[in-house]
């Protein structure tokens, strides 16, 4: 391969320079480097995984906070180094898929991570331990919408004219949902484009962040939208009049989890940490605080959160994205979104 990945080489260099800052004074316990998002997610990781479970195993994380793409770039850039920069990296399933394709990830098997055996079917991959997941549902204001929407196509219904909206950052998942309605698969973007064009013409509101997608339900700006079930629970807890409706065509899944690079310096600790993450207690903690569903069959929700996150009966079709197709389609869909949907 004659090409040189100059920006990755550069990032690797930057990573090496930054490395000393990451090394905490050595305690008796074994440290490992955890690449993750900042904010609530990292706080909950500390409170639900590390403090109650992992620390008893004698491991402690050194946290490398960054956005997902720089984290992925860092792993890709240092993949040829004998000793990598990270032991555990938190990524979405789609990123895990492409990194696994590139062959930079360690396989996670029950002999390394025993709890992997309990992972629900359809969420995991050979190199990926799913941490949290949430189905994409139709959100609506139960005070104003008397009969809940039943399919994605209703977003284009004139009765919701100027009352449809969702956060712009989820555009790709919305496209997959449209495809699911139109074709039964998550990857027919030609049909998805047709449907989204109609939704857009119906007076679609876009919001610049996930957080900004909630208040419009309260202010009456929108009545229906597309969201993660997890967010609905959070918004309900914040007093926003919003409820979830499961579309009859099924739900695209948001799955986020953890991976271990092949050149991770402390794989033993990494496996132990991931195993702790899959413990029922840790899983239930995330459900209670962020509204995400447990990824293991061993964890059972109870009380209010169980009600908020309950699946209808019969359980709807749950469909993880088809990563092999989506990663290839992403640039085209992104460009189309920018120039068609975002363009007034």
């Amino acid at each position, binding site marked *: 391969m004659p090409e040189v990945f*100059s920006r990755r080489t550069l990032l690797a260099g930057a990573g090496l320079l930054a490395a000393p800052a990451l090394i905490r004074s050595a305690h008796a316990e074994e440290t490992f480097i955890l690449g993750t998002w900042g904010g609530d997610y990292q706080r909950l990781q500390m409170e639900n995984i590390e403090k109650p479970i992992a620390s008893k195993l004698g491991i402690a994380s050194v946290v490398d906070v960054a956005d997902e793409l720089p984290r992925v770039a860092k792993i890709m850039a240092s993949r040829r180094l004998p000793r990598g920069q990270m032991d555990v990296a938190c990524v979405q399933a789609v990123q895990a898929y492409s990194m696994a394709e590139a062959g930079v990830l360690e396989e996670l098997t029950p002999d390394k991570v025993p709890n992997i055996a309990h992972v629900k079917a359809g969420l995991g991959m050979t190199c990926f331990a799913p941490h949290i997941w949430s189905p994409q549902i139709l959100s609506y204001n139960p005070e104003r919408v008397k009969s809940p929407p039943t399919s994605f196509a209703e977003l284009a219904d004139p009765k919701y004219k100027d009352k449809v909206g969702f956060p712009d950052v989820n555009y790709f998942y919305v496209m997959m949902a449209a495809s699911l309605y139109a074709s039964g698969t998550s990857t027919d973007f030609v049909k998805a484009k047709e449907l989204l064009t109609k939704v857009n013409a119906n007076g679609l509101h876009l919001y610049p962040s996930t957080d900004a997608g909630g208040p419009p339900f309260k202010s*009456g700006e929108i009545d229906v939208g597309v969201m993660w079930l997890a967010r609905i629970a959070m918004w309900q807890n914040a007093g926003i009049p919003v409820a979830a409706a499961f579309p009859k065509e099924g739900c695209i899944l948001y799955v986020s989890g953890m991976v271990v690079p092949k050149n991770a310096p402390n794989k033993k600790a990494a496996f132990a940490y991931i195993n702790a993450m899959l413990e029922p207690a840790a899983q239930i903690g995330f459900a209670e605080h962020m509204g995400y569903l447990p990824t293991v069959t061993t964890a059972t929700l109870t009380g209010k959160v169980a009600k908020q996150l309950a699946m209808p009966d019969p359980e709807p079709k749950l469909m993880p994205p088809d990563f092999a197709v989506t990663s290839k389609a992403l640039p085209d869909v992104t460009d189309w979104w920018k120039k068609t949907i975002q363009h007034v």
Partner: protein
Amino acid sequence: MRQKLPLAAAGLLGPATSVVVLMLAAPLALLFRDSLNRFDVTELMIETVTAANYTRFFTETFYWEVLRTTILVAATVAVLCVALGLPLAWRLARTTSRWKSLMMLLVILPLFIGSTVRTVGWMILFARNGMMDSVAGLFGTRVDLMYTTTAVIIGTLSVNLPFMVLTLQSVFEGIDDRLTEAAQGLGATPSRAFWRVVWPLALPGVMISAILSFILGMNAYATPVLLGGPRFQMMAPLVFWEFNTNSNWPFSAALAFILMATTLLLTSLSNFLVPRRYRA
């Protein structure tokens, strides 16, 4: 002795120059190099030399429109900045009040708060059922400013105005008040004295602060994203979109270069707006 002088000067300038070259020129050169590469979905960036990224920008009307919006917003903000900042700066420069330092503090105060936080403040004002909308509701009407060009202009204006007032105030303070008195003594009314004497002398400084505001406006990111919403397109958010959402580093590098070149070009053209004899 004379021979040694340039050497000594070079010695003094050397460290600063090399820091600038290292910290500014080198990354720019790398960025430019990236902009000539090719994007690929799996490999992300393939090293080559192609003008395709630039061609893409100049052949698609979408990007022209984004650039036009960016220039329009930046220029409008610059003009409004001058119009609003001028009287304020003039009063501040000429006041003999003992509250002057307090007034200065009030002008600078917004700079102590990050522009993103200030923008959130505007969001609370502009939002549906927000403060402005609620007040308008009392009169039976609606104010729906959120996610509009007006909101972006107001937001950017609030970010740039303190800089404008500060620079203009020092421009005015550099102009001897005796000149105004001399003009008035010769029969000029206060307003004629201002326009005939102070204004021409302040013009180069006014131009510089307008350019400062223009550059800040051209590169605005947080305000257009938060107040303009996803449908409002300006260059800096577009650069980030291509870089982060699309992972298309070569194209976002090209966008960054086009933005920078446009800003530089318009800035140097604006110089011709000031009559030659007034130039510093």
